[in-house]
């Protein structure tokens, strides 16, 4: 249970930090491609820092892989959204969207892990 809750909290934290960081540096009208690249870069830096900080407590790969998806894709999505002036109305709303995005990615990866889990080759089975 500790790890399950921890996985979700870390994913939500990466989502919130990425959403807020992107909102802080974007402005409506910025070229969308540039916005997505900047968002991706910010998300990657945030995921890297957070994952390495809490990885020893929760497991390096279980932390790093969801955080990478949240940072990379979340940064791109948030950058795209903010460049179109279609973002959240307030900082709180942006953080909430980031948290939801993080939680959804963590949940999706847990489902995917269950799908991949187990024996994939058994030559003597």
């Amino acid at each position, binding site marked *: 249970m500790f*790890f399950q809750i921890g996985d979700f909290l870390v994913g939500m934290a990466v989502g919130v930090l990425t959403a807020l960081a992107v909102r802080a540096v974007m402005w409506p009208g910025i070229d969308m491609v540039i916005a997505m690249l900047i968002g991706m870069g910010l998300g990657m830096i945030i995921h*890297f820092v957070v994952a390495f900080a809490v*990885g*020893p*407590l*929760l*497991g*390096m*790969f*279980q932390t*790093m*892989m969801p955080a*990478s*998806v949240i940072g*990379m894709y979340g940064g791109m999505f948030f950058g795209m959204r903010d460049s179109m002036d279609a973002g959240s109305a307030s900082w709180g709303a942006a953080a909430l969207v980031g948290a939801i995005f993080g939680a959804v990615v963590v949940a999706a*990866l847990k489902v*995917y*892990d269950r799908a*991949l*889990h*187990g*024996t*994939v*080759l*058994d*030559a*003597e*089975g």
Partner: protein
Amino acid sequence: MTIAVEDTKRKWDGAAKSIDLLSFADDRRFGGYKRRLFAKMYGKSLMVATGTGNDFKYFPPGLDIDALDISPKMLEKAAPRAEGYPGTLTLREMDVCNLDYPDNTFDTVLTVCTFCSVPKPVVGLSELHRVLKPGGQILMFEHMRSAVAQFGVLLDMMTPLSRKFGPDLNRDTVGNVLKAGFRLRRVENVYLDIMRIIEAVKD
């Protein structure tokens, strides 16, 4: 001793101070998998890249095990844990790419997160193949490159950094086991397709 071996030794001597920090999550998330894998050990056994001996607690009792590491600092930390093993457990400083054992010595070889770090993994695995008896088994708990594009590319991007203080994250360890001449017996995904159990045999 070559520069590469000295570099590897220096890197892992440095990591010896902090590597046990990772054991908290590893023990709880992967301990059951390791215990189940280690239970398959039999006969004269060899553990490679023993580290600080954190995994000794998963050994079945009563075996005759040689445990190697390239880092003297790691072995210093492993020594008290080795003393507690209810069997014969001998620590030796050795490079897996240049093993000081005759051919066909061991029944079982065990590796845990080892071949992410050996600079020449196929050379190391070939050495393990050499020292295994015909019919002997290699049991591996390893992380490797994911075949899932998103994760594989990410692990590729992170490896130049991770390599400076620890392991490579993008090794094709299953492929390397085959290149070294082993026959795969079983492969199990433990986390995504990154943490895996590999069991192989020497025909």
